[in-house]
């Protein structure tokens, strides 16, 4: 165990990852574009959440600066979970591809793909300097196979591309940094609650969706939507020594929705 940075730490997945890591004995620094909320999450988790930082993952220099500050403030960094993303503040229409344009693609790519590059670029050297550790990047079921039914309804073409990119980037890092004692894996959430849409809200909308487009409202073969905690558990496992021989993997945490 050691100190882990969790980006998107104020989001539903990020906060659940932070909580699960702290339960496993990690010290966690939360980083999020919404500092106030990240501070509230850190307070809620308790002493294991050592601090919260404002972080916009689209800014290369700022990501480096924050990563350096966390190491200076709290000591060697041995873990990273990237969970920044989602539609908040991005103004993504998720409209049909031919009706969208380059500006919207850029916002999508900056956060969901380039943001992971920026974060790994800044934090991986810290983990190497600390003697090794683990990275978990948040990909998506949409990055494993294009257009799972729930996302097909939302026209996730560029999002799928970004998340596939995250998986491939992680495979590259796994090979490059494996000899230096760093493992790198992905989790692939499916239809998961977010801060803006908690699971109760998803369940409430399920009936409406189903009535509009039969089949589209299905949560997963497990009969429910993904909870933040499901993602936190998966990430904490991949970060732990129990996953000590697992690297370059992408763990499907979609409740089987890709099998539809």
């Amino acid at each position: 165990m050691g100190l882990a940075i969790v980006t998107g730490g104020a989001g539903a997945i990020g906060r659940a990852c932070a909580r699960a890591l702290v339960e496993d004995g990690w010290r966690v620094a939360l980083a999020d574009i919404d500092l106030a909320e990240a501070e509230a999450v850190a307070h809620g988790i308790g002493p294991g959440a050592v601090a919260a930082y404002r972080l916009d993952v689209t800014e290369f220099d700022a990501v480096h600066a924050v990563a350096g500050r966390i190491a200076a403030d709290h000591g060697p960094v041995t873990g990273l979970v990237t969970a920044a993303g989602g539609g908040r503040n991005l103004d993504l229409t998720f409209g049909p591809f031919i009706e969208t344009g380059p500006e919207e693609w850029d916002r999508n790519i900056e956060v969901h793909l380039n943001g992971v590059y920026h974060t790994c670029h800044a934090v991986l050297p810290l983990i190497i300097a600390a003697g090794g550790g683990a990275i978990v990047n948040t990909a998506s079921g949409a990055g494993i196979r294009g257009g799972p039914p729930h996302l097909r309804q939302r026209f996730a073409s560029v999002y799928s591309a970004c998340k596939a990119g995250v998986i491939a980037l992680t495979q590259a890092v796994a090979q490059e940094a494996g000899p230096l004692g760093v493992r790198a894996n992905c989790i692939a959430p499916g239809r998961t609650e977010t801060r803006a849409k908690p699971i109760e809200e998803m369940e409430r909308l399920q009936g409406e969706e189903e009535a509009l487009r039969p089949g589209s409202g299905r949560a997963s073969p497990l009969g429910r939507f993904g909870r933040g905690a499901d993602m936190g558990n998966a990430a904490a496992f991949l970060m732990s020594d129990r996953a000590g021989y697992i690297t370059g993997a992408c763990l499907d945490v979609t409740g089987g929705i890709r099998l539809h």
Partner: protein
Amino acid sequence: MATALITGAASLMGEGIARALGRDGWDMVLTDIDGKGAEAVARRIGAGTRIEVAEMDVTDHARVAEVAKETARGFGAIDALVNCAGGLRGLGISRKPLVEISPEDWRKVIDTNLKGVLNCVHCALPIMKAQGAGAIVSIAASRGLRGGPGAAHYSAAKAGIILFTQTMVLECSGYGVTINSIAPGNAEAHWKGADDGASVAPLGRPTSAGDVGAAVRWLLSPEAAHVTGACIDVSGGTTLH
């Protein structure tokens, strides 16, 4: 005759694709950021079909839109789009571990390989939709099927192309358009030495421009009319290495 718009046509692979399509009688618009290089390809292959050349940078959405429109006007249709522009070392970027990749190099690789495909599909697809028919083939890479060391940016961009392709198939159901990708590995290129990478290919040689051309030709033929959303691995087994 049917018309194909090809990007990256001045590259060895682009030339291989143009040669293969010429054999099937395709009219072609050969585009490349290197307009003179594309003209040289057009002269060399002289396929006996109508070939025009346009200088085009795939990262310039406005220029791509212009070329797509001119092609549809001049030839009456865009029946096929072949996205071949891209690469890593061909862009003058050397392989490096992720922690040593500069933001400038990262951006250039993502912009050329991934956003270039987005731009071209965005401009050609509405024309195909209006026609009620068309075919798109994008050149991905074995690195996109499995990320490789020293090429995190290139792997990410090519994996993005493969998944973008799959998702667009579902999005464009009813358009009459097939959308596929091809994954070469250790492909021949003008700037490469003869034995570059051949040692890791189970078939013992690099992917030739002709191998890629043959796959594109098949995907654009009536024989592949029911093939869509596929990524054909034409790496000689390199992906498994």
